[in-house]
C-alpha cells in the first residue's frame, strides 16, 4: 500500500492502495466514482474509458503508479456544475441508452470525438466508436453525435 495523489475531474484525490492496482478499481471502489464501468477487464469493450490528459483510455489496464502526473476525467466530470455537456444532452435527446451500462465509456469516446471534430463523418464515427454495446444502441449513438455536431439526423 502506498499513499498517492491523483487528479480526477480537476480535484486532487489522495488514496492508499497498491501502486499496481488498475485505475478503474480505485475510481470505483475507493473514490466512489462508479460511473466508470467494468465490462471485460482485458481492454476490448471500452466500458472503462476515461480521459487521460484529454485522450480516451482504458482504465481497466492503467495502473495507479502510471497516472500520478496526468489529468484524469471520468463521466462524472463531463458536466459542468450540473449542466450537461452538449454530447450528454444529445444522448438524452436521442434517448440513446438502453440498459446504459456501456454508456459512460461510449460518452467518453463520443465527447472526445465531437470536441475534436466539428462535423465527424459516418466513417470517422465508426472509427472512433470502438465500444461494445450489447444492447445495440449504435444507431442512436450515431444520431446523438450528429445532433451534437449540428448535422442532419440519420435514419
Amino acid at each position, binding site marked *: 500500500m502506498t499513499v498517492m495523489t491523483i487528479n480526477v475531474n480537476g480535484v486532487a484525490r489522495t488514496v492508499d*492502495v*497498491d501502486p499496481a492496482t488498475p485505475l478503474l478499481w480505485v475510481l470505483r471502489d475507493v473514490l466512489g466514482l462508479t460511473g466508470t464501468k467494468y465490462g471485460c477487464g*482485458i481492454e476490448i469493450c471500452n466500458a472503462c474509458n476515461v480521459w487521460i490528459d484529454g485522450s480516451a483510455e482504458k482504465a481497466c489496464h492503467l495502473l495507479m503508479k502510471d497516472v500520478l502526473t496526468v489529468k484524469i476525467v471520468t463521466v462524472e466530470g463531463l458536466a459542468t456544475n450540473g449542466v450537461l455537456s452538449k454530447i450528454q444532452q444529445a444522448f438524452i435527446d436521442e434517448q440513446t441508452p438502453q440498459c446504459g451500462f456501456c454508456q459512460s465509456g461510449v460518452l467518453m469516446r463520443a465527447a472526445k470525438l465531437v470536441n475534436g471534430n466539428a462535423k465527424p463523418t459516418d466513417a470517422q464515427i465508426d472509427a472512433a466508436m470502438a465500444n*461494445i454495446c450489447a444492447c445495440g444502441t449504435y444507431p442512436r449513438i450515431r444520431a446523438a453525435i450528429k445532433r451534437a455536431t449540428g448535422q442532419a439526423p440519420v435514419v
Partner: protein
Amino acid sequence: MSDQLFKNGAELINTNVSRRAFMAGSVGTVLAFVLESSMPGSVANAAGAGTKISGYLTINPDNTVTVAFGGAEMGQGIMTGLAQCVAEELMVDWSQVKTESAPWAQSYITGGSFGVRANFVAMRTAGAQAREMLISAAATSMGVPASSCTASAGVITNTLNSQTRTFTSVAADAALLTPPASPALTPKANWRIIGTRANRTDIRGKVDGSAIFGLDVQVPGMVYAAVRHSPAIGGTLAATPKLPAGATHVINLGNAVAVVASHSWIPLDYCAIGISSTSSTWRDGIKWTAPAGAAAMTTAAILSTGNTLMASGTPGSPLAENIGTAAANYTAAPKKFEGTYQVPFLPHVMMEVPNCTVSLSTNSAEVWAPTQAAGWVASTVAALTGIPTANVTVHITLLGAGLGRKIEQDFIAEAVKVAKIVGKPVKLFWPREEDLSQDQYRPFGLIRVRLGMDASGTPTAFQARNVSVSPLFQRGWIGATGNDNVDGLVDSPYNIPNKLVEFVRHPSTIPVGFWRSVGESMNCFALESAIDEAALIAGQDPVAFRRTLLAGKTRELGVLNAAATMIGWDAGAPAGHAYGIALASGFGSLACLALEVSQPAAGSLTIHRACMAVDPGMAVNPTQVEAQMQGGIIQGLTSALWGKTTFANGKASSKNFNNVRLLKMSESPAIQVQIIESGIQYLGGIGEVGVPPVAPALANAYARLNGTRVRTLPFF
C-alpha cells in the same frame, strides 16, 4: 394469450395507504397499491399463480409524483412505460413524473415481454383511483362537490369558483379515503401521455454517471468478493487454496472459490487472471474434480445424441401440435421439402456481469441486486439463512441488461453464502470470464422441418420436430413436453391444413436458461428458413409464397408487406446484393424483418440495411418500440454471425470478449423501423420479438446472394 391480458385488477390497500401516508409524511405522501398480476407463461406459473405486484405513488412536496414498481429496468423502458400509464390517469404532466424501483421483497418476475402489456389496465386503474381520491379530498377541502372538480398538471380546480388545490396539499387527506372500485378510465382519444414519445425517466443518470447498477452499489463497511467456478461446469474444488496476498478470505463454495478483499481488484485478479482458464489444476496445486458425466458434456457427443433423437427419439406426449394428418399428407405430397437446422448453446452476454450485494443481520437481511426476480431473491436468502422472507428487503437496482440471465439465483446464493461467512456486507461479482463460461445458456437444438406441397406448390402439410435441451425440465417445472422449446413452431400463422409439431427432450446437463425470445430464438430460424427453401422448390418468390400462406391474416400481411416495401423487394436488390425476409410472431406482437446483404470476399458478409415492420397492437411509447427493434436486430445479428458456446468435458469455450465477438458500430446496418398499430386489443410485448426474425432473414438473404443455404448457426 391475449384474453388473459386484461384480467388484472388494481386495488388500493387502504390500511397500507394510511399507515404509509403517516410514516412517510415528511418526504411526501405515499399511496400504495397492490396489483393482482396475471402474467401468463411458464416463468410466471413457476413463480406461483397470482403473483403480486407491489407499487406505490408518492406525491412529493414539490407536487411531482414518484411512481415505484417492483420490476426490473434493464433497458427496455419498462419503468417509463408503466409510469406513462399511471400518469395518464393521474392527470399530471410527464415532466412531473419520476420513477424508482420499489424496494419490496414481493415484486414480480420481469420476463416474457409482459412488463407493460400485462399491467396496462391495472396501472391506468391505479392512476385513476389515485386521481379520484385526490379530487375527492380537494372537493371536501374547498366545500364543493367532486363532480365540479377537474385535475390537470397535478392541480385540482373547481369550476364553480376557480379555487385550486395542488395534489401535494390534499394528498394526506386523499390517502385516508377508500379507493373507488371502478374509476373512470380516460378514453384513448384523450390520451396525452400513453402513445407518445415520452422521454425515459432513467436516462439522465445513464449519461452523467449517477445511475446505480448492481455493480455500483456501495454500503457502509462493505467488502468485495469475486468467484472462480470449476472450469468443468459443476465440478468441485478438492481443497481450499491459500489466502492470497491482500485478501481477507478465501472460501471454498464447493463448485467455486470466492476471494474477499477490501476492494474488487485483488479478488478479480485472483479469479479471472493468471491461471489458464481451462486448466484442471487451480492454485497451490489443488485440483478441480470433474463433475459426474463430464465426458457427455462435449459438443460432439451432444450433437450425436441429438441426431439419434431426431431419427428415433420418442416425442413428448401430448404432441405439441397435431392438426389433421400431417405425416400421411407429407408422405403423399408431390412436392416436398425437408431440412434440419441446428442452433448452438448461446451465452446471454449482458454488459453488467452477475453480481449481488448482501447485508445480513441476526434476523433480517438486505439485498441489492440487478435481478429480474426479486421475490425469488428473498426466497433464496430465506432458504440459506433461515431468515423469514418477510424480513428480507430486496432493492432492485438498475440492470446492465438482463436478457433472461438475471432471473437466475446462482450468483445471489453465492453472495449470501459469502456474506454469512464474512460477517460483513459483501458485494460478490463474477469476472467476465465466469459470466461467459458459467452461463445458463440458450439451449442447443436441432429442428427438422418438413413441408409437403401440392402440385402447384401450395403447402398442405407442415411437420416439425424440435430436439433440444429444456430449461423448464432442468428446473423440474414440467414433464416431457416441449413448452417454451416449441414456441415459434406451434400456432404458426401460416394457413396449412395439416400440422404436426413434436418435441423430443435432449438430456444434456449443460445448464440452459431463458434467453431473450426463448424458444422463438431457435424455432423462428428453422421455420422461416424452411419457408424460403420450400418457396424455392415451389418456384415462387418468398414474399409472394408467404402472402399466399397468410391469406386473410391482416396483421401478418401488414408487417410482411410493410417490410417488403421498405426494403424495395419488388424492385430487387442492387447488383451484387441480395434481400432476405423473415416473419416472427410471438409475445403478442408481430415483426417482419428484411435485410440487404453482400459478400465482399469469401468468409465475410456485409449487412447494409435492416428494415423492420413491427405490430405491437399499440405502441405505448414509439421511441422505445423502435429502440427495442434496433437493439433486437443488432443482438440477433451478433448471435447469428458469431454466437455460440461449445463444450469439451464440461468446459465452456466462451470466456471473454476476445473469443466472444459482438457486432460493433462499424458493422451495424442502417436500420429502419416502421410501427404498425392494428389495435389496442392486440397490445403485445416488444422486448423480444425483434430478435427471432434476424437469423432466418440473414440466412435467406445469404442463400439468395450466393445459393448457399446456412442451416447451422452461427454463420462464422
